[in-house]
């Protein structure tokens, strides 16, 4: 009898302890809401009469809701850097603290993708989201500033036409990620509207003065350059048809060469044959003024014919044929296959 009473007390005690512990184990984390995702791609290509295999940046993407108004976004990539002792380097691509101060209006501080065009503001480094294998040619040509460290005021989906804006003031070209190299700042002003579903129309203006002897994209710019960039964008990603076209006019003014006019544009068009299969084309065109000193003058024309297959929304296969003509290298072609993943 005494033994039975003891056993009952023991069982009751165990149940009470499990109940308290279970409540603790079953709770959601008391820490803030943080997510880590990754993106990467591997590819195989045939060009210059050789078969080659490679892989792209491994992108770590972190978001965290710090509290009701503040959030953090960080993006770091690990990539092949031939000059590095290990042949690989790490780069902080985005590091942004965002403050949602009212409705759909935010302040952002940190290193951001310059909101100069649709592609740069939408796709960043996640190639699984790219409509094509690689970015349009104006990107590797460094036609536009990819990143700016600064402060931005942005808003989105305002009113019936879903107006959006972004005003970014930051370190200019030639600066490091953590300090401005001169007394001037760069200014990016962008606006867009989404008048109907899936359609976005945008324009932007970029203004910066690059100091003489500043190093930009591993090149020393010998003279001071006042750069203005005017960009227009049209994007439509519907159930069947996809269209993305952007053009940037660069006005680069120096005391010695006057104002050079340079033009970069691309047009992407795709047709969603099924939910998973999208054939597409892309045309690229880069034209430079004859006296251009800031850009490497290399007039370029290219067309791409490709297809995209969604195994899953974060596992995309792409196959492309590209015909490329540049002023410096002449005519080349390449066939490339890519597997882009998110995880």
């Amino acid at each position: 009898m005494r033994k039975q009473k003891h056993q009952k007390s023991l069982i009751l005690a165990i149940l009470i302890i499990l109940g308290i512990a279970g409540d603790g184990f079953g709770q959601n984390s008391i820490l803030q809401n943080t997510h880590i995702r990754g993106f990467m791609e591997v590819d195989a290509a045939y060009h210059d009469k050789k078969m080659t295999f490679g892989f792209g940046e491994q992108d770590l993407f972190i978001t965290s809701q710090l509290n009701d108004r503040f959030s953090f976004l960080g993006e770091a990539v690990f990539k092949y850097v031939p000059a590095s002792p290990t042949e690989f380097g790490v780069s902080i691509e985005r590091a942004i603290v965002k403050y949602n101060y009212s409705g759909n209006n935010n302040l952002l501080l940190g290193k951001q993708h310059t909101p100069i065009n649709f592609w740069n503001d939408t796709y960043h480094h996640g190639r699984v989201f790219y409509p094509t294998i690689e970015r349009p040619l104006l990107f590797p040509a460094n036609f536009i500033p990819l990143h700016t460290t600064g402060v931005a005021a942005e808003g989105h989906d305002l009113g019936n036409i879903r107006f959006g804006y972004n005003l970014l003031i930051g370190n200019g070209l030639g600066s490091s990620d953590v300090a401005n190299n001169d007394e001037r700042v760069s200014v990016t002003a962008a606006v867009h509207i989404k008048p109907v579903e899936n359609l976005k129309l945008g324009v932007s203006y970029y203004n910066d003065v690059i100091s003489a002897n500043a190093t930009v994209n591993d090149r020393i710019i010998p003279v001071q350059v006042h750069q203005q960039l005017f960009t227009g964008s049209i994007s439509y990603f519907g159930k069947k048809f996809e269209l993305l076209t952007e053009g940037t006019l660069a006005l680069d003014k120096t005391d010695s060469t006057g104002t050079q006019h340079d033009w970069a544009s691309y047009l992407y068009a795709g047709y969603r044959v099924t939910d998973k299969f999208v054939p597409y084309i892309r045309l690229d065109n880069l034209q430079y003024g004859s006296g251009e000193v800031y850009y490497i003058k290399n007039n370029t024309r290219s067309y791409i014919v490709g297809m995209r297959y969604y195994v899953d929304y974060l596992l995309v296969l792409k196959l492309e044929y590209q015909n490329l003509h540049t002023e410096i290298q002449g005519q080349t072609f390449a066939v490339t296959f890519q597997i882009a993943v998110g995880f």
Partner: protein
Amino acid sequence: MRIRAIIYDHLVKYFFIGILLTSCCLSSRAQDNNLVAIGNQIGVPSEIKMSELKAVFHGERQRWGNGTKVIIAMIKTTTPLGNEISEKIYSKNGEEVRGFWAGIMFAGKFDAPNVFNTEAEVETFVSQNPGAIAIIDKVVTTADIKTILVGGKKTF
């Protein structure tokens, strides 16, 4: 007399066939309008237009009118209800909706929705989070949850 009986039999037969067909249509119409928007009692409006509901579920609203943060809760898009919500709200299938949200989140535009396996979990989350909104398939009204009228109606 016999002819009258035959005609009467046919009329009765077709009458009941008509009743059956009509009831099928009525019940499928009821199924077409079986989604319900629910929200936490704090912050979420009691009535909303369909266009506004879609805007919310596309990440186009960060705050409700009183400043409460918009928090989206969804049942997994791989469930039948999740797939129905995907088609009706996003005009996409479940996988496309996941891709849509992955792109939005990666661009830093909006937080990804909170996703759950069951409606009960969705309701619990909504009840515990001011500003939370979700779509399920039944009307719920408690001290913490309200059923939101969409275009003046409880179901859509």
